[in-house]
């Protein structure tokens, strides 16, 4: 035990030291294309100067799928920085995947979950108890529940005459909100970043005639993890479980940026990253509902087919072909 612990500490230290070469002080790290940046604060929101921040990679998807109840897996350090006097930090991080950001002072610890690639923000509140600095977090699977649906896409229509459908491509990523609790008690979980999950195969839901609005759902396995080193308890899906269901109990949002499509035309939009479903996934056993967002790539497609009538397609935030901002939600039919 002592030998293996020493070896683990050595490996972690080596990882941290190696990452120092690629990490940056807050003042110099603002130009990196792919990075995690944020601010360290107290539980009341006051910035904390000079906190130590380390980023750990969660175990691989395969390892987490195979993980049994009660089994602990170690997280791997991949980057480190010291926050500025104003509490801000920036750490270069080129890879995609799921990461745990841990901020540390002698008095308290805090964590935040980030996923995906590119620019990521992780504002960490020091809500956890004091713990040793050279502590390598382990996550332990506490419990899982039966697969539950998460919303990965929507289409909306107000009038009859068209068909609509959604495709969730192979290896499509969805980001699901993560909950954190210091006690693990039901109802005590609060939002703590996100984790991404990749579909192994493509998923289709079939076409739906208008004038219905549709939420497209696929299943994830809800789970609870404990995280050592002052981490607490996390409500976080264990894996994507597949399956395709719909929920038509939804109404179109107010969408006023419109473009006309004649009968016998189609509209296809890939890359549906633009909208986050605030109540996208619920871990019922823990009383936590998190957000859900689909699409880090262009593998998710939304289709409208004007098969029997011409119709306006209207975006909530911009025209359906607009950019910066994108249309977010698209509705067939002008209000």
């Amino acid at each position, binding site marked *: 035990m002592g030998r293996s612990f020493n070896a683990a500490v050595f490996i972690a230290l080596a990882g941290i030291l190696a990452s120092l070469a690629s990490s940056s002080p807050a003042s110099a790290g603002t130009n990196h294309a792919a990075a995690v940046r944020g601010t360290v604060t107290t539980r009341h929101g006051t910035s904390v100067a000079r906190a130590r921040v380390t980023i750990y990679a969660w175990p691989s998807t395969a390892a987490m799928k195979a993980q049994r109840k009660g089994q602990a897996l170690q997280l791997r350090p991949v980057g480190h920085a010291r926050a500025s006097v104003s509490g801000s930090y920036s750490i270069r991080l080129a890879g995609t995947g799921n990461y745990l950001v841990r901020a540390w002072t002698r008095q308290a610890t805090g964590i935040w979950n980030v996923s995906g690639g590119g620019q990521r923000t992780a504002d960490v509140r020091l809500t956890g108890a004091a713990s040793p600095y050279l502590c390598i977090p382990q996550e332990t699977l506490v419990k899982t529940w039966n697969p539950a649906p998460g919303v990965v896409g929507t289409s909306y229509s107000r009038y009859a005459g068209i068909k609509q459908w959604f495709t969730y491509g192979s290896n499509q990523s969805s980001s699901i909100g993560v909950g954190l609790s210091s006690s693990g008690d039901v109802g005590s979980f609060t939002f703590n970043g996100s984790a991404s999950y990749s579909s192994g195969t493509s998923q289709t839901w079939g076409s739906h005639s208008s004038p219905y609005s549709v939420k497209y759902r696929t299943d994830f396995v809800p789970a609870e993890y404990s995280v050592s080193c002052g981490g607490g308890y996390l409500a976080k899906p264990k894996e994507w479980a597949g399956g395709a269901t719909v929920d038509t109990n939804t109404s179109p949002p107010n969408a006023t940026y419109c473009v006309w499509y004649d009968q016998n*035309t189609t509209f296809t*939009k890939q890359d549906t990253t633009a909208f986050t479903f605030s109540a996208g996934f619920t871990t019922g056993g823990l009383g936590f509902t998190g957000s859900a967002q689909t699409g880090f790539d262009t593998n998710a497609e939304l289709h409208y087919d004007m098969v029997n009538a011409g119709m306006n397609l209207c975006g909530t935030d911009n025209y359906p*072909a607009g950019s910066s901002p994108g249309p977010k939600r698209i509705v067939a039919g002008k209000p």
Partner: protein
Amino acid sequence: MRRLLLTALAATGVVLAGCTGSAGPFGPSFSDHVTSCANVPAGRNVSFGVEYVRNHGSQPATLSKVTLASPHGLDVLAVWSAPIRDRQLYGLRDGWPAPARRAGWQSVAGATVPAGGTRNLILVVKPTARTGHADGLAIDYQESGQSFQLAISTRLKVRVGASCS
């Protein structure tokens, strides 16, 4: 090795010197990840007006030309710049725009986009193959004596007598 490094640095410098690196007042080029497809009877044209430009600058901009990017089996017959009213773009429609609809429209060459203004771009295209397609629009314009090009990756497909689905 050192000579190789110096050569590489010099080459990099030449490349960087040739780039302006800044977007014009219409903003940077982008992809909207949209494909618009029209199924038309043989002999019919298509009006393609799903895109618009916004002049973020403080001076008026003047459109020079708008062309299809990488067109195949499509000829452009006309291009207009149209004011946008009530947040409504012209869209994807069968045939030529009716004259009554074209109030306030300008042929794109020389059309002005006022500072802070928006204009819908409408192209009339004629399919010359059973399936025609293009990868986007290239929009050339000038502002304060400088020339710019905005590229919008938005796919257009036109199928003659065949479904788009």
